[in-house]
C-alpha cells in the first residue's frame, strides 16, 4: 500500500462523486423551471440506487474473476466479499498493473463511474419520463449494459482490454455507452410535446455554469485518478484534461461566433464539457499539445453534431448524443492517432507516433462493440418498460411539469404570494 496513491485515489473518488450533482445542475439549468426538480432528482437518485446495486453485485460483474470469454465477471465479489483485505489482488491487476491502494479504494472509485454513467442519459430524456420508469431503467441498465462493457474495457481480463483497445477513463465505457443508450431511449420515448416548434429556453444558465465548474473540477479526479497512482501519468492526465476542456471551449465559441454571431455562455459550457468527454479515453496516453488539438477539434465537431437532431428528428433534449456520443467517438478514435508510448509506456503508439493503424483499428472495434451492445440492450429495455410500466408521463403532466406531477414539489418560491393551505 502506498499512502500517497491511496490518498490520491480516495480524493479522486470524492471528486467523481461530486460530478453527479454537478451534472444535475449542468442539466437542471437548461430545462424549464417546471422541470428542474425532475432533472435534479433523476441524477441524485442514481447516486442512491446504482451505489447499492454496485456493492451488492454489480462491481463483481464488472471486475470480478472473469466468468469466461472476457465478457463479464463472476459473482465472487458480491457484497464486496473479501475486499476489505488490503492485500488482495484484484483479477488482472498483477505484475506491472498491480495496485498499490486498498481494493476498497478501487471499488469506491469505480463506483462513482457507475453512478454518473446512467445519469448522463437524463439529459436526453428530459421533461417527459416517468420517475418510476427511470428508476427501473437505470437499475437494469447498470446490470445489463454498464457492468459488461466496463468488464470488456476496464478489467484487464476483459476481451477488449486484452485486444489492446485503450480507454484511459471511460470514452467507450462511460460516454459512448451512455450516449448511444440515450439515443435508443429518445427513439422509444419520443419527442417532448411542442418540440421543435415551441421555445424551451434554459431557466437558469448560472445553474448550468455551476454544474460546468463542478464537472470540470471533478473531471480531474475522473481522468487523473484513473492512473490509480499519483505519478507522472496522473499529472499528464490532469493537464491534458484541463487543456482539452479549454481548447474545446474555444473551438465551440469560434464556430458559434462565426455561425450565429455570438459567443454564448451556454456554448462555453457545452464546449468545455465536450472537450472533457473527448479527452477521457486519451488523458493518460497523449501529450499536452495533442490534448489541445483533440479538444479544439471536438469543440467544433460537437457544435455541429448537436444540429443533427433537427435533421433526423430525434429529441435529444439537452444534447447527450451530440456531446457525449459524438465527443466520446471523436476522442476514442483520435486516440488511435495521438497515443504515444513516450507519454505512457503502458499505452501504445498511434498513427502519428509511428504505430500505424493498428491501435486505430482496435479503437474502432471497441467503439463499435460498445455502440452495438449498448444500443440493442437499451432499446429492448426501453421497449419492455414502455410496454409494462410506461416510459412517459401523460400529456397534461408533461404540460404541468415533472416537478409537480412526479414529485409534488416546486423548484422555486421567490414571490410574496403565500398561496397555500396545510392539508388537502
Amino acid at each position, binding site marked *: 500500500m502506498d499512502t500517497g496513491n491511496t490518498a490520491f485515489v480516495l480524493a479522486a473518488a470524492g471528486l467523481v462523486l461530486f460530478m453527479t450533482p454537478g451534472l444535475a445542475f449542468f442539466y437542471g439549468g437548461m430545462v424549464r423551471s417546471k422541470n428542474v426538480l425532475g432533472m435534479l432528482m433523476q441524477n441524485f437518485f442514481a447516486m442512491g440506487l446504482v451505489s447499492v446495486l454496485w456493492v451488492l453485485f454489480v462491481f463483481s460483474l464488472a471486475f470480478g474473476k472473469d466468468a469466461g470469454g472476457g465478457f463479464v465477471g463472476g459473482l465472487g465479489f458480491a457484497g464486496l466479499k473479501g475486499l476489505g483485505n488490503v492485500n488482495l489482488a484484484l483479477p488482472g491487476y498483477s505484475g506491472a498493473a498491480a495496485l498499490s491502494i486498498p481494493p476498497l479504494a478501487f471499488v469506491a472509485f469505480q463506483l462513482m463511474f457507475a453512478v454518473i454513467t446512467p445519469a448522463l442519459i437524463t439529459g436526453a430524456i428530459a421533461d417527459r419520463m416517468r420517475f418510476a420508469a427511470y428508476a427501473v431503467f437505470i437499475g437494469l441498465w447498470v446490470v445489463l449494459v454498464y457492468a459488461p462493457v466496463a468488464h470488456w474495457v476496464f478489467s484487464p481480463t476483459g476481451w477488449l482490454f486484452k485486444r489492446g483497445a485503450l480507454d484511459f477513463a471511460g470514452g467507450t465505457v462511460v460516454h459512448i455507452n451512455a450516449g448511444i443508450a440515450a439515443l435508443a431511449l429518445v427513439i422509444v420515448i419520443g419527442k417532448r410535446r411542442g418540440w421543435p416548434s415551441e421555445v424551451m429556453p434554459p431557466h437558469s444558465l448560472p445553474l448550468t455554469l455551476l454544474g460546468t465548474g463542478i464537472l470540470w473540477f471533478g473531471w480531474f479526479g475522473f481522468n487523473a485518478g484513473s492512473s490509480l497512482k499519483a505519478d507522472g501519468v496522473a499529472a499528464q492526465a490532469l493537464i491534458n484534461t484541463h487543456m482539452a476542456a479549454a481548447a474545446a471551449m474555444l473551438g465551440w465559441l469560434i464556430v458559434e461566433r462565426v455561425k450565429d454571431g455570438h459567443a454564448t455562455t451556454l456554448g462555453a459550457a457545452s464546449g468545455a464539457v465536450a472537450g472533457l468527454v473527448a479527452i477521457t479515453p486519451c488523458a493518460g496516453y497523449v501529450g499536452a499539445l495533442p490534448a489541445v488539438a483533440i479538444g479544439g477539434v471536438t469543440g467544433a465537431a460537437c457544435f455541429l453534431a448537436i444540429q443533427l437532431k433537427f435533421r433526423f428528428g430525434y429529441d435529444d433534449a439537452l444534447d447527450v448524443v451530440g456531446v457525449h456520443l459524438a465527443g466520446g467517438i471523436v476522442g476514442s478514435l483520435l486516440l488511435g492517432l495521438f497515443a504515444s508510448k513516450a507519454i505512457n509506456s503502458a499505452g501504445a503508439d498511434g498513427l502519428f507516433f509511428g504505430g500505424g493503424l493498428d491501435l486505430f483499428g482496435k479503437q474502432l472495434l471497441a467503439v463499435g462493440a460498445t455502440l452495438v451492445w449498448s444500443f440493442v440492450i437499451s432499446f429492448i429495455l426501453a421497449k419492455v418498460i414502455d410496454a409494462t410500466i410506461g416510459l412517459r408521463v401523460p400529456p397534461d403532466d408533461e*404540460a*404541468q411539469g415533472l416537478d*409537480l406531477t412526479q414529485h*409534488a*414539489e*416546486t423548484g422555486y418560491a421567490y414571490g410574496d*404570494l403565500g*398561496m*397555500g*393551505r*396545510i*392539508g*388537502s
Partner: protein
Amino acid sequence: MRLVTAIIKPFKLDAVKEALRTLGVQGMTVSEVQGFGRQRGHTEVYRGTEYTIDFVPKIRVEVATDDATAGAVVQAIADAARTEKIGDGKVWVVAIEDVMRIRTGEMGHDAL
C-alpha cells in the same frame, strides 16, 4: 375607447398574440397573475406535510382599443384562448376615457 382585459392560460399566450396581430392590433401589455376559480389548484408535499395551492398561474392580456374594434378583439382573444377545459379564463371590457402615446403625446385613436 375600450380596455379589453383577458385572463388566459399561459401556454395560450402565443396563440392570442398571433390572433390579435392578424386582427391588426398594434400593441398589448401582458403580465403574470395567479387565478382562483373553478379550476382546481394542486398539492405539494414537503417532508410529509401536504400543502394545497388553490391558485393557478395565468396570464393577463390588456389591449386598449377603439370602441369599434373592441368586440372583435374580445372574440379573437376568446377564440384563440379557448381549450374548452375548465380554467380557460375570462375577458372583460372597461371604458377608457382617453389614451395617450407617451412618446408623441398623441391622444385617442392615434395613440394606439
